[in-house]
């Protein structure tokens, strides 16, 4: 493969995966702009890696790994976390075909709030499974685990989330 082809494939990967990566970032940081920056950063880092001639055999997994690391780094820098409440007040825009009626928005808000109360690991799994729509097998592939482990963890995460819905609200 020559440089031109590499570039082409990379750009095609951008077309393929940019939305998914963005969505992932968004449900980790809850800020549209941050999510966009993170997405860009992830692809840039990936290109740098490629341009140095290092091989990548699973690009999607690689992108996710880069993204996750970026998010971890960012969280470490201890930015005051934005509460979901503020987000929704600011008029968070979730582009989508579903009805933007009050009920939907409220439901969504509650969902995100509860989701946020989960441990990072569980939050991520639910995000990958239900929002990104990956199968346990694919997730296993991304996270370098066995599908079984992933399935079990997803079930537990779902249970945990359910628990949160049932238990009293935490004041943020």
């Amino acid at each position, binding site marked *: 493969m020559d440089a031109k082809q590499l570039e082409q494939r990379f750009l095609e990967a951008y077309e393929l995966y940019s939305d998914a990566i963005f969505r992932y970032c968004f449900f980790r940081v809850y800020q549209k702009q941050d999510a966009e920056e993170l997405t860009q950063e992830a692809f840039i880092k990936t290109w740098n890696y*490629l341009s140095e001639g290092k091989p990548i055999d699973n690009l999607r997994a690689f992108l996710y790994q880069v993204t996750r690391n970026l998010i971890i780094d960012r969280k470490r820098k201890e930015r005051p976390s934005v509460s979901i409440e503020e987000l929704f007040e600011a008029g968070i825009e979730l582009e989508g075909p579903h009805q933007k009626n009050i009920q939907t928005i409220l439901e969504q808000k509650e969902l995100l709030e509860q989701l946020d109360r989960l441990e990072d690991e569980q939050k991520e799994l639910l995000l990958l499974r239900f929002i990104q729509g990956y199968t346990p097998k694919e997730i296993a592939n991304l996270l370098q685990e066995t599908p079984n482990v992933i399935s079990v963890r997803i079930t537990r995460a779902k249970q945990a989330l359910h628990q949160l819905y049932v238990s009293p609200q935490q004041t943020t």
Partner: protein
Amino acid sequence: MFHLNKQLKKNRAVKLSNHSKELIRETLLSHIQEHPVRNIESSRLLFQNHLSYFAKSFIIRPSYSMPFIILALVAMLGGGTAFAAQGSLPGDLLYPVKVNVNEELQSAFTFNEEAKANLELNHAEERVNEAIRSEAKGKLSDETKLTIEDQIARHTEQINEIAKKLEVRGNVQAAEAVRSHLDGYIEIKSKILEKIGMPILSGQTTATIENSEKIQADTSPEKKEETKNSLERNVIHEAIKAVQKENKNLLNVLKREDSDDNDSLIVQPIPQGGLQPVPLINKPLQRGDDDTSQENENEQEDEQEDEREDNDVEVEGELKLDSKIEIEID
């Protein structure tokens, strides 16, 4: 709980706005300009998931017939088998692997017509070599002769097909080159073959090959199909047997062949010798601090490699080879 799933799914609609997407793409493009590819030699992008995307456009994929499944088996159980097959002769255990797997693979990944013709010619030459070596070993039986003649006929037909194709496309020069190479081959090799009792090429030229459909011993299309099928069936059995024999030892040898350049089962560009052995080791992604470096400790590597081998090889309609087995020939 079902209600939770539904709720979560509603968020799937979240994606980049067209505007933002464009902006980021622009940024990426200029970044690429400023940071061009530096080390193209070892740069290999192996996109598994990509292939299903490409299927919608134009990429030529090898057909998912038996030989490909066998390759997956061979690759899974021991890459050294393919390598060992290269030296085999008709009648040897691994010969079917050489012809139906190694050579098939080579053609499958050659996209340029002229290069394909070249490849077929190489294969045809190899057939002659096999004949000579068999003769020297006293193994040139009637059956062997038949096998080789059969194959040579196929190769020459293929080459002619390609020449015709090139002509039809208007590339007369290339067609001529292809034909003249074939003529050269026939001229030289026919004499050699005659000497060992295989007059198949005698008196042939590209013209006669074109007009007479067959220069092989048995001519009916049914027989062709039959030999092909039984050949394929045999390939599977033989390959599995042979590979199982070598399995344990090879894997250990390959594991120790640690190399910086080869992170997965990559088939290197093929020189005359055929496929090269490559480590089966795959270096999984690790969570580095800032950099997602692909460094790894050996123990984890071995462990995960075993795991992956058990779980992951599938050959489905879409080439979702979920393990990190990817084949790229430049």
